[in-house]
Structure formats: C-alpha cells, structure tokens
C-alpha cells in the first residue's frame, strides 16, 4: 500500500496544482488571434440528443465562416477565425452556471451562444448576465425570458401562445366529419411541458376545442398503460403529446399494443427527430411533429445544410436551421459592430436587418426577441412533410390517421 505521511498533502497538492493551471496569466493571449465563442450545451444526459444536434450546427457554422477566413473585425483591422468552445451542462439546469463560469473564466470567451430549451437557456443566460457577456439565445419561450428582465441576452424563438394555437389551426383544416371528437393533452411533467400545456389548454378554449383529458406524463416512464386506458375509457381520438423522444416512442408503441388509434396525434419535442421514425417505422406515419425549420423551405443554403446533416446522420432535422441561423446572425453582428465587445455586438444584433439567413430574414424587436412561426410537420414515408405554416406546405394537407392495420 502506498504510504502517505500526511493525507493533507494530497489535498494541498491538488489545490495548488489546480490554482496554477487555472491561473489567468498562463491563458491570456497578448494579441487577439481568434474570436472565442462559448456555448453551454447539454451534450451528456437526457437532453444530449438535442444538445448534440445544436452543437453540430454550431460547429458547421464555425467551419463555414472559418473557411472564408473568419469574421472581419474593424477594431483589429483583420479577419479573425472563430473558435467554438462547448461546456457540458450535463442536462442539469443546476450545472448551467458552472458551465458558463468555466467558459468565461478559463476559456475567456468573448461571447456566448445559446443552450437548448428554456430550462437550460435561462440559468445560463442569467449566469452570463453576471459577467456582462452577450448571450445570443434561442429555443427559449420569449414569455419566460422576458420575465427575467435580462439586459445582456436576446432570444430567437417562437411565441408560446402562437405555437400553442398551431394544432388547432391545423385541425380546423380537416373536414368536419373526419376531425377527432374527443381531444386530450398529454404533457410531460417538466417546466416546458407545464408551460406549453397551459398554453395549449388556453388555445384550445379559444378555438372552441373541449379538452376531455389533460394528463401529465412522467419523464422516462416505461409504462404508459394507465394513461392509455384513460384515453380509451374516455373515447379520445385526438391528442397532443409533449414528451422527449424516447417517451414518445414508448407511448406510440404501447398505444398500438393497446389497440388505441388516434386519428390525430400532434407530438411536440419528441417526435421531430429522425430517430422517432427509425424506431417506429410506419407506425410513426401520420404522427405530427413540431419543428423550427425545414430544408425544403426556399431559404439560401438551407438545402445544403440539410443534406450535410442527412449525409452524416442518415436522417433529417427540422431544428438545425435555427441553430445555424443563430450563428449567421452573430457573425454578421460581430462584423457590423467591428468589435467583440458584448455591448456593441448586442447593439448590432438589435439594430441590424439580417437578410438571407437559413431561417429567412430576421429582425429583432426592441425587447430583444426575434420571433418566427413554429412549424408543424407530418411523418409520411420517413419524411417530415410541412403542414404549417400553410404557405410553406407546398400544397400538402394534413391527413387523418387510418386504423393501425391500414397504415
């Protein structure tokens, strides 16, 4: 056995070594050689699927701008390459502040790019606020972000109340005789699930849809038979399901096993990923999903980004356009600001009309939000067909799901 004269020395050694390693003197560069962009993402844990998708899009955007020599920054009178630093927040909102702390104090980032979803974006945006570093946010409901009165961040996303109206607007396009009669909300028991569930219930009332059942779903539950039995007993034939990818797959599988056929199933959060189709095959047909973007939409470079993603992962994404566009906006804002100073970059974001991003033209509102309409897609033959916004659906109309044996 190793002999240690005093175990205290171990602690002291670690402390001193760490202090020396993390001391700023060794890390600070004398001359600005690159723009360091940090992003606190959930790359491990339950939200890693979404976190890694966002990471991939950020990395692509960084590679693309660096292939052009970087961003011209007037303050340094030269083009500077972009370096992306990812800090894992382990799908734990409580670790968001620590992730930002590492990015700011060890990696010395100039600016911060968004995390994924409100419960990860808010803690990290608040942490950025402490250091007065600009946080270029997305995927956070503006209503949640506005409530925190943050000065050093902006948000690029859709409004919760508008997003909640989409299923009902889509339902209204179905001929009256085919529409579901009894409708249910199945909402994941999380911050987003509860917030969105409230919005969906309100929107349902406004669209004169009676919600026959509003049921919370446990995260990661392996058995949804209790909820499925309730749906059957109440004669539910249409539902909105808000849950993560694995839970949505489990739910649809158990729904089929129990012989429950929903004419209309609109999934949020968990049905958009290509893995949903891979796991369920044709059983995923007719299920709707949300999304932010489609490579089929007529925006510059959209098709190219989509194909790159499909080539690498063998599936399509309805989210990467938002992440890529966030980077395009930030690069342009840095160039317009002529500096990486947070106040100047934020000011440029707020005042610039961003033309021709992969999400189309983007303009921020005076409150720091840039809003785009949430989309809805329907799974058909492994592809997400645009259903909403109607003007981007290229004539495709939502279809009611036939019985399981006829799919």
């Amino acid at each position: 056995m190793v002999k240690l004269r005093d175990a205290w020395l171990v602690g002291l050694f670690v402390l001193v070594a760490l202090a020396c390693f993390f001391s700023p003197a060794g890390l600070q560069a004398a001359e600005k050689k690159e723009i360091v962009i940090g992003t606190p993402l959930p790359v491990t844990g339950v939200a890693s699927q979404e976190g890694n998708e966002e990471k991939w899009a950020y990395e692509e955007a960084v590679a693309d701008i660096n292939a052009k020599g970087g961003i011209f920054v007037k303050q340094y009178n030269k083009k500077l390459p972009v370096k992306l630093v990812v800090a894992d927040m382990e799908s734990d909102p409580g670790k968001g502040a620590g992730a930002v702390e590492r990015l700011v104090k060890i990696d010395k980032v100039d600016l911060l790019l968004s995390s994924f979803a409100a419960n990860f974006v808010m803690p990290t945006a608040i942490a950025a606020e402490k250091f007065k570093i600009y946080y270029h946010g997305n995927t956070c409901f503006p209503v949640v972000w506005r409530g925190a009165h943050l000065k050093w961040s902006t948000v690029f996303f859709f409004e919760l109340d508008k997003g909640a109206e989409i299923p009902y607007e889509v339902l209204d396009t179905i001929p009256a005789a085919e529409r579901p009669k009894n409708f249910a909300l199945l909402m994941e028991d999380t911050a987003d699930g509860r917030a969105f569930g409230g919005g969906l219930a309100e929107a349902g009332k406004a669209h004169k849809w009676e919600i026959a059942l509003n049921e919370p779903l446990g995260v990661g539950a392996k058995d949804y038979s209790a909820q499925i039995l309730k749906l059957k007993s109440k004669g539910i034939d249409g539902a909105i399901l808000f849950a993560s990818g694995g839970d949505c797959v489990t739910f649809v599988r158990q729904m089929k096993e129990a012989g429950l056929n929903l004419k209309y199933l609109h999934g949020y959060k968990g049905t958009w990923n290509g893995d949903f189709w891979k796991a369920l095959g044709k059983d995923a047909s007719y299920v709707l999903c949300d999304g932010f973007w489609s490579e089929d939409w007529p925006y510059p470079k959209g098709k190219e980004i989509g194909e790159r993603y499909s080539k690498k992962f063998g599936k399509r994404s309805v989210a990467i356009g938002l992440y890529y566009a966030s980077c395009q906006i930030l690069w342009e804002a840095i160039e317009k600001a002529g500096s990486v100073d947070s106040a100047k970059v934020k000011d440029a974001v707020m005042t610039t009309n961003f033309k021709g991003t992969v999400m189309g033209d983007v303009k921020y509102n005076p409150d720091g939000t840039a809003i785009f309409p949430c989309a809805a897609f329907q799974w058909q033959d492994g592809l997400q067909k645009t259903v909403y916004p109607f003007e981007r659906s290229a004539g495709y109309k939502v279809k009611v799901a036939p019985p399981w044996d006829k799919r």
Partner: protein
Amino acid sequence: MSRKSLLLLIVIIAACCAVPFVFDPEKSYVVYFLFMASIYVTLAQSWNLVAGYTGQVSLGHHAFFGLGAYVVAIMWSRHLIGYLDPIGFILAGVAASMLAVLVGIPLLSKLKGDYFALGTLGLGEIMRLITIQLGAFTGGPMGILLPSSSFGTILPHYFIALFLAVLAIAVTFYMARSHIGLALVSIREDEAAAEASGINVLKFKVLSFAVAAFLAGMSGSVLAYYIFTVEPQGFYGLNWTLYPVLMCVLGGAGTMTGPIIGGLLLTAVFEIARYFLPEIHPIFSGLFIILAIMFLPTGIMGLRPRTMQREKGGVSIGRLLTKRAKGE
C-alpha cells in the same frame, strides 16, 4: 484532530482567505473552484456527522440542500429578505432542520441501515415533486428566477461559503469531542449497547440529523444567492447527496479531515474532467470513484499506517450498511 492537523487546517483556511487577493476573483476560476469546493466540504462534513459519526447512512441531503435554496428564493422574490441577507441563510438552515426533525423522528425510530437510507432517498424526490406541484408559490418546474442585477462580485459568496465550511468543521469537531460525540459513536458502534447504557438513542440520532440538515440547508441558500436560478431539477438533484457521500467516503468517513480532503480532491477531479474530457467526463469520474472505493474502502485517511493515525474511528460505509442490515 491533532495539533498538527489543526495547524494545517488554520494554514489552509488562511490560504483560502488570501486566494481572492492573489487571483482576480472576477477573472480567475480558482475562486469559483474554491467556492464550490467549500460548499461540497460543508455538505460532506454535515453528511459525515450523520453517517460517519452516528452510523445513519442518509441519502436525503439533497432534500435539505434544495429546501434551503427554496426558502431564500421564495422569500427574496417576495421582498421579505434582501440579497445575501443573513436572516435568509439562518431561515434556510432552520427550515431544513425542522424538516429533518419532522421526518427524522419517524424514520430514525423505525428504520435502520439500508432501509433508513432508502427512506431518506425518497425524501428528496418527495420534496422535488411537492415543489413542482406548488405551482406559482415555488415557480413550479421552471423554478424561481432571481434578480441577477444584484450581483456585484463573487467575494461575499466566497467568504460565506468558506465560513460555512469552517463552521461545519467546527461543529463536527465540537460534537465529536463532546459527550454528544461519545453518544453518537456509541450509537454507531452498537445501538443496543448504547441504549442499555442509558443513551437516548433517538434524541441523539435526530440531533445529528437536524444539525447536518441545518448546514446542508445553509449551503443551498449560498448557492441560490450565487446562481440566481432555483429550480427543482438542479437543486433537488441527487448529486447534492451522492457527491458529498463520495467525498466523505473517499476522504474517510467518521474522521474530521476526511470530508475536507475528499471534498477538495473530488471537486478538482470533476472540474478537470469536465474541462479536459467534455464528452466523456461522467465515464472518467465514475471510473475514478469506482477505483477509489475499490482500493480505498476506508478513504484516504485510511492510507496512513495505524500508528500514525491520530484520528481514530474511520469507518467503511459498506461495512456500516452490512452491519446495520444484519441488525448488529
């Protein structure tokens, strides 16, 4: 704790106090690292009091930690207390202690060994669900967002966390060296014999549980004041129990210095792994813990030759659980 250890402790505290004046607290990560390490040392030391000294392996520390954070968040968001308000810290500790007494009396009188551990494990989950269900009062699943504009510097947070760590060490030192400590150790070694000797077993078990909860609750409030976002997933996360347990076990449970060494060492390991192995750090950290527990079952303090060990009483938590389960 020997005179030498006490002297070393004083030197370390003095060094920690000097750190923010050597490194720029707003730019250097060292200050944040020591801030987090202090919180972990407090949690590990408080857990040590219950498990290491009293022999009651509690897995509900995250319930007290989260409650402490929520007490501060709820009161501050309603302007009942201010930013870094001492009343907030004290109330956070008191609320956690009250919860510990409330659940401690039935749990500690009826459950033993791993049954007690499982009972306390459920406490954290119950608190998380209650917090979510309370809706607007606790902010539901989104939690409470606190005004980050109040933040000026990490320094007050750092010194408060350091003070708490010292307080946890001092409280453990006092309790271990007083008649309370004798009672706690006798309960750990043989509960029936302790009871036969006239020790009010339940009273002392609840006392150590409540004191540990007080320290855990205050730790939660310190972090809440620093990160400005108090939400159920993060603050009632099992990590706030498991990490301190690992730190305590790795350093040496049932010793005064074990949780300090374990706290500093594991915080450093986790931070370095997160930085250098961003995508596989959970695997690395997990492996480190498995190897450490395999080869150091009595912790780092157990490495010292018996003749050199001035702090007696270090225990293996595995042995403790087995012993309790057998009803020995």
